[in-house]
C-alpha cells in the first residue's frame, strides 16, 4: 500500500520534470490584460497562419505593467496586449517598450499610435452603464432608466449604484477624467477662458463626484465587478466597460447597456517589450493584432470592442460608434495628472 503511494508520488514528480523540460518550440510569450475568449481566438488564428505557439499570462493592466517594470533587466515576455495605451505610454516613457514598425500600423489613424512606434491602439472601448431591468421594476417602480451621467445624481438612486475604485482600476480612473472633460465642454458657456476652463471643469467634476458618491453604495476593486453585482441584482445600475457589459446582455441576462452621451473611452494598446526573448516574433505578433483578420475577431468574439482599423466591421449589438458622443479626452493631461487626481478622489470620497 505504502509502496504504491510512493510509486504514485515518484510518477508525479517524473511527469512534472518532463513538463518542465518540454516545450522548446518556437513561441511568443504574452502578458495580456484582456478577456480570455478574445485572446484565445486571436492566438489560435496567429498560430494557424504562422505556426508559432502563443503562451500567455492574463491579468489586470496594472499588474502586467508592474511585472514588465520589475523584469526590466531580463524581460520575461515578448508582447504586452490589452489595457489602455495610457499604461503602455507610461512604460514607453521609461524605455521599457521596443520601437517597431509593423506594416499594418500604416493604416492606423495617428491618434491610435505612438509617433515613435512603441505602442499601437488596436481597439476602442467605451464606458457605459449596466442596468438590471428586473430590479428597476421591482425596487424602483416608476423610475425611468438613466439616460445621462447626471441622471445618476437623482435622490431615488441612493444606494442603488455600484462603481469601481480608481485606486485599483484603470477604467475607473478614465471615468474621473471623463467627467472633467465633460464639464470642460460646458465651462466656456459660463465665461471661463484659457487655463481657467480646465480648472473650473475639474472643480465642477469634483462637485459632481460628491453628489454621485451619495448614491454609490460600493466601489469595487476591478472594473468588471459592477457588472457581476448588477447582474446578480445586488445593485440596479453599475458603471463599467460597454463591451464587457454586452457579454452579459448577449447571454440573455436581465440587463441592458446604456451609453450616456459624453462618455469616456480607452484605446486598447499592444506593444513589443524592449529586450524581449523573441523580438522578431514579437513584432510579427503585434503586426498580426493590427491586421484586418484580428481586428475582425476583436469586434466579433468575446468582449466585442470597436476596431481601430478603418473598414473593419463594427461589433454587432453595440451602438454605432458614429452616433456615440465622446468627450474630448486629453490623454497626455490625464496621464500627467494621474497621481494628483487619484489623491483628490480619495479626499472627496473617503468612504
Amino acid at each position, binding site marked *: 500500500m505504502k509502496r504504491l503511494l510512493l510509486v504514485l508520488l515518484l510518477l508525479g*514528480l517524473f511527469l512534472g520534470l518532463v*513538463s518542465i523540460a518540454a516545450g522548446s518550440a518556437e513561441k511568443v510569450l504574452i502578458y495580456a490584460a484582456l478577456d*480570455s475568449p478574445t485572446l484565445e481566438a486571436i492566438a489560435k488564428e496567429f498560430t494557424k497562419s504562422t505556426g508559432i505557439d502563443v503562451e500567455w499570462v492574463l491579468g489586470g493592466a496594472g499588474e502586467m505593467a*508592474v511585472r514588465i517594470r*520589475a*523584469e526590466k533587466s*531580463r524581460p520575461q515576455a515578448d508582447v504586452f496586449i490589452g489595457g489602455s495605451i495610457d499604461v503602455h505610454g507610461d512604460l514607453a516613457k521609461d524605455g521599457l517598450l521596443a520601437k517597431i514598425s509593423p506594416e499594418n500600423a500604416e493604416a492606423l489613424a495617428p491618434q491610435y499610435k505612438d509617433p515613435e512606434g512603441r505602442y499601437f491602439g488596436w481597439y476602442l472601448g467605451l464606458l457605459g452603464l449596466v442596468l438590471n431591468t428586473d430590479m428597476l421594476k421591482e425596487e424602483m417602480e416608476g423610475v425611468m432608466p438613466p439616460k445621462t451621467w447626471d441622471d445618476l445624481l437623482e435622490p431615488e438612486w441612493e444606494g442603488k449604484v455600484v462603481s469601481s475604485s480608481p485606486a485599483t482600476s484603470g477604467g475607473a480612473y478614465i471615468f474621473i477624467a471623463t467627467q472633467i472633460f465633460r464639464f470642460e465642454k460646458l465651462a466656456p458657456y459660463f465665461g471661463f477662458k484659457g487655463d481657467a476652463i480646465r480648472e473650473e471643469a475639474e472643480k465642477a467634476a469634483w462637485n459632481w463626484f460628491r453628489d454621485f458618491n451619495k448614491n454609490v453604495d460600493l466601489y469595487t476593486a476591478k472594473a*468588471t465587478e459592477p457588472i457581476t453585482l448588477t447582474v*446578480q441584482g445586488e445593485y440596479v445600475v453599475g458603471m463599467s466597460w460597454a463591451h464587457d457589459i454586452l457579454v452579459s446582455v448577449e447571454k440573455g441576462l436581465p440587463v441592458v447597456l446604456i451609453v450616456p452621451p459624453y462618455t469616456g473611452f480607452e484605446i486598447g494598446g499592444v506593444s513589443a517589450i524592449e529586450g524581449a526573448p523573441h523580438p522578431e516574433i514579437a513584432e510579427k505578433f503585434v503586426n498580426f493584432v493590427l491586421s484586418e483578420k484580428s481586428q475582425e475577431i476583436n469586434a466579433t468574439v468575446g468582449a466585442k470592442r470597436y476596431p481601430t482599423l478603418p473598414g473593419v466591421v463594427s461589433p454587432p449589438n453595440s451602438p454605432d460608434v458614429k452616433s456615440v458622443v465622446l468627450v474630448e479626452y486629453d490623454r497626455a493631461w490625464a496621464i500627467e495628472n494621474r497621481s494628483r487626481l487619484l489623491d483628490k478622489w*480619495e479626499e472627496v470620497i473617503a468612504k
Partner: protein
Amino acid sequence: MMSINNDGMKKCRHYLIKSIKFNSILGKIDLVHLIIIILGIILFIFVVFPVLKVFSYPSIEDYIYILSKSRSLRAIKNSLFITLISTSTATFIGFIYAYTMRYTNVPGKKFFKFISLLPLLSPPFVVALAWILLFGRRGLITYELFKTHWSIFGWKGLWLVQSIAFFPYSYLIIDGVLKEIDPSLEYAAENAGANGFYVFRTITLPLALPGILNAIILVGIYVLADFGNPIVIAGSWPVLPTEIFGRISGYYDLVGATGLAAVLLIPTFGLFMLNRTMLGGKSFVTITGKGTGLEKPLITGTVKWILFGFCLFIILIIISVYGILLIGSFTTTWGIDWSFSLNHWYILFGTKSRSLYNSIIYALFAGGGAAVFSLFATYFIYGKVFIGKKILDFLVILPAAIPGIFLGVGFLLAFNNPPLLLTGTSLIIIFGLMVWNIPLGYQACTANFEQITSEIEEGAINLGANSLQVFKDIIFPLLKSPFLAGFIMGFLRSITNLSIVIFLISPGNNTATAEMLSLIQYAELGPAIAICIALFGIALLVIGITQLFLGTGMAVFTKGGL
C-alpha cells in the same frame, strides 16, 4: 527498483564522503557541518535575500511619500482594527467549537470536524463571491429568506467572513491543548463540590489559556495577511494587503507597493516574535504527563444543547457557502439561471486543464521539497549544537511571519538577475511555495524530534554509524509521520495559494488559482467556480488518500502544525 536506488545512494554517499576527505580546503569540515552550511546557504538565498530585496527597493523618500498618503494611513488603521475584531471572534468561535467537541457527546462529531476543515482548504476569492450571493443586499439568505436589506460589503461583512474563514485554525490549536488537560484535575474539583461553570472557570480555562493565546497570535497573522476576502468584500475600505495590490493595479507603482509590504511585515513579525518569546514558538503547548486514560467529564443538559446549537449554526453557514459553490459549478449562470449545465467544466477541461495540471505538479514539488528540507533542518539544525544555530533556527521558522504577497514580490525582485535567474520558470513558483511551507514541516518534525532520546542516536554512533546513517535509519523512520504531515499540508496550502504565485507565474507556467483570478476579472464567474471546486476536490481527495493509507487524514492538520 528500490534496491537499485539504495545501492546508488550508497555509492553516492561513498564518493561524497571520499571527495570531502580528499579535498584539502574542506578537509577540516566534516559532513555534518557541510550539510549545515548548505542548509544555511539555502536559507540565506531564499529567505533573507528576498526579504532584504523588498525592504531596500523603496528609498527613504519613497517610504516617507507612501506613508504620508492618507489612504495608506487608513489602510494601516483598518488593518489593525479588523485584525483585532476578526481574530477575537475567530478565536472565540474556535474555543466554543473545540470545547463542544471535547467536553460533550453531541451527535455527529465526525461530521462537525470534517466541515470545519473546509475553510482551511478553500482557494481565495471565489469563496468570498459565494458570501455575496448568500448574504448580499439581494442575498439568498439575507433577502430571499429573511427579507432584510443588509449588505455584506464593508468592514462588518469582512468581519463576518474572516471570523468563519479563520476560526478552524484556532479550533485546531485550542483542541490540541484541551486534549492534553488531565481530566483527573477536573474530576477532583467536581468531587470537591465545585459546579460545572466553576470548574470551567478555574481549571479548564486557565489550563487552556496558552492555547488560546497561541491561537490569537497565529490567527492574527493570517488575518493581517488576508487578501482574498477584503479585495472582494471590503469595497473601498482599504486594508494593507489590498492597498499593496491597489498600488500595483491602480497606480502601477511597484515602489509604493513594496513600501507598504514592508510596513505590513512589521505587525506580522511582531506577533511572530511574541509567539516565539512567550510560547517558545510551538503551535501546540503540551502539558507534561501523559493522558491518564480517563474520559473528559462530559457537559450535559441545557448547556450541552446551547453549545450544540452554536456549532450547528456555524457549520450551517459553512455548508451553505460551499454548497452554493458546488451547485454554481453545475448551473448555467450562478445566481440567475439555476438550470443544470456542464459548460463550465467543459471550459475547465478544454482550455484550463494545463493550469490545473501545473498547480498539482508545483504543489507536489513544493510540499515535498518543504518536507525534505524540514527533515534535514530538524536533524542538522535543531538537533545539533554549533555556532549560529539560533540564527538558522530562526530563519527556518521566519517564513511563517511573511505574508504571501510580500514573499511573492520579494521573489520577483530577488531572482530576476544573474546568477539567480529564476523568473519565467516554474522553479521560482516551486521555491516560493516551498519556502512558505517550510515552517510547518519544521514545527511538526521538531515537536516529534524532542521525543527521540539522544541515547538512541549516541548508541548508534558508538556502534559505528555515521551521521547520515543515523539520519536515514533512525531519525527518518521516527519522523516519518510528521514528515508526511508536512508534505501533505504543504501540498494543500500550495495548490490553493494565490498571493505568492500571482507575482511569479509566467507565460506557459500558469496556475489554476491565477487562472481563477483572471476569469473573475473579466466577469467569467462560471469557469472560475469550476476551478475552485476542482481544487477543492483535489484537496479532499488527498486527505482521503491519506486517511486510507495512513489512517490519519484529518490528523494532518494537527500534526502539520499551522
